[in-house]
């Protein structure tokens, strides 16, 4: 009896992890992730940009002329280079470029994360339903996915904005989400197809679980890591699409985004005279998308043990 008890306690002390499997899995994932150079660079960049987004709230509090949209320096009437008053210079009507850059960071995060979240949500749900239901539902949903996938998202949103007038930032986010789910849903569907045949789903069916419960309680936890991975790539594409739209002059006119800043440089003809104005927004867009892309690639290694082994062998 005592022997038995002691073995039991020792078992428990060896594996306390069973109580929080998710946290334990995250810890394990992190230990792989932090060994990855590309992942580390990506995360560092992300932290820098997150700090920039937080800092964007302060300049307008210091002086109203540092407001990214409406703040105009009364002493300046045209674009000027960097100075003590304006660290990155000013745009064509005397607005501070650094403040615009910081405000743009906030917009980029907002657009990227919300659009990616929505498209991942759509893609995951549709992929699971298609894979689990099979038959006609599968065929219809996947053909729809094929159809949306071949369309160039940017040009579709352009056409829509020509028909429905100026789009606001949330409509743009929604449109990006609506056109970017097919890639995710394909992957999730394939994963669901293989999960569906496993014994634990069989067991759930035998105990009388509803289809709804099987999909959301048994299949979803197993596809979520994959969805999360795709989310990083979707953030990248959402930021690029929004910036490109703004660059072409179809952004939300009430926001200051990096794409918008580039459009101002381009349209006001400062492209050749004002490198201090041309360079920062482009560098920011490129680096932020790079950071999400790098994190995605590092996460791929965490999720795919095959890739991980390769790294370990080196």
């Amino acid at each position, binding site marked *: 009896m005592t022997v038995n008890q002691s073995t039991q306690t020792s078992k428990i002390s060896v594996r306390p992890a069973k109580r929080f499997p998710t946290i334990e899995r995250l810890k394990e994932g992190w230990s792989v992730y932090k060994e990855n150079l590309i992942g580390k660079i990506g995360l560092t960049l992300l932290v820098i940009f997150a700090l920039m987004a937080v800092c964007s709230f302060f300049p307008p509090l210091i002086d109203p002329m540092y407001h990214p949209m409406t703040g105009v320096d009364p002493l300046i009437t045209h674009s000027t280079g960097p100075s003590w008053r304006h660290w990155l210079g000013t745009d064509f009507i005397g607005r501070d470029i650094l403040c615009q850059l910081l405000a743009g960071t906030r917009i980029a995060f907002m657009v990227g994360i919300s659009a990616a979240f929505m498209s991942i949500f759509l893609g995951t749900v549709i992929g699971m339903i298609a894979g689990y239901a099979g038959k006609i539902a599968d065929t219809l949903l996947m053909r729809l996915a094929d*159809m949306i996938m*071949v369309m160039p998202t940017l040009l579709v949103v352009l056409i829509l904005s020509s*028909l*429905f007038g100026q789009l606001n930032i949330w409509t743009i986010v929604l449109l990006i989400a609506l056109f970017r789910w097919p890639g995710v849903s394909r992957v999730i569907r394939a994963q669901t197809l293989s999960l569906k045949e496993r014994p634990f789903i069989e067991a759930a069916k035998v105990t009388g679980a509803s289809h709804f419960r099987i999909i959301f309680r048994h299949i979803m936890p197993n596809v979520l890591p994959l969805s999360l991975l795709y989310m990083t790539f979707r953030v990248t594409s959402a930021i*690029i699409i929004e910036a490109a739209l703004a660059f072409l002059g179809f952004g939300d006119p009430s926001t200051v985004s990096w794409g918008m800043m580039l459009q101002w440089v381009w349209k006001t003809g400062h492209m050749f005279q004002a490198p201090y104005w041309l360079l920062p927004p482009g560098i920011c867009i490129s680096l932020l998308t790079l950071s999400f892309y790098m994190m995605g690639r590092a996460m791929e290694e965490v999720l795919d043990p095959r890739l991980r082994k390769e790294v370990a062998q080196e």
Partner: protein
Amino acid sequence: MEVRKFILKRFIEIFIIFFVILTVLFLLFRLAPGDPVTRMVDPTLTPEDSQYLIAQLGLDQPIGLQYLYYIKNFFTGNFGNSFHYGVTVSSIIWSRLPNTIILFTTSILLSAFVGIFLGKIASWQKGTKTDTWMTLGALVCHTLFLPWLAMLMIWIFGFKIGWFPLNGMISPKIWMDPSSGFWLKSLDVLHHMILPLATLFLIHFGSYLLLMRSSMLDTLKEDYILTARAKGLEEKTIRNKHAAPNAALPVVTSVGISLAFSLSGGALTETVFSWPGIGRELVFAVSNSDYPLAQGSFLLIAIVVLMANLVVDVLYAYLDPRIKY
């Protein structure tokens, strides 16, 4: 025989997809706020002219008939008149299409070939400094913001150094001169094309490199590579003859998937470089509320994407004889 059946099946599928796009566009033009007549007929036309156009486009008919008119007009190449240019949309589109296709195909082929070639080398030197730098470089190039890179290119190579023209596709001076021959004109176009081409190339080759690299690494674990090694073949032969052709297959598929992305990029490049292509025409039409031109150029871009997808599918069917359809 099997392959032919597969191609036919894909062709029908693509045709259906196109029909759906055509229908959705029709519905969108009717659903959008405002009057569809003012959207398709230039408001500055005389009453007689606009009556004629309305009758031709079937805009005075009930909506079901309007749809039939719309389909008929599409297949006879009648997209209405452009508000801005005042000529038929189809004539504008036909003159722009070759320019887009030249830029688009060259950039895709060039970046795919270079990407596959470099990816092969990177995977072969896996873990070395060359590999790390190539992968990092590809990642950075792939995420550069396209319009910004285009502006940077113009600023550095067009404005500062002055090697290439700032924008456009031809220099009027050479083309107006009757004495300049075919070669001089082609050379002039090439000279204008280098910067947009380099921009598109830089953006696209990275993704092909990364894909080829990981695909190569997968292939190298296959048994037939081991066999080739056991036979005592040279490393170079194994790499180029045994591994690379198989590893390139997924890259071909990805070319198909990324076509839509490339066309968006193409439109941006054309706009920044003032390259007279369809993408630029679409952006221009949308900015100027030139609805017939926007509709026509969008449909044509859709056709280009779908056709290019078909080409990739056919290519794949011939490249991989193992696949059974």
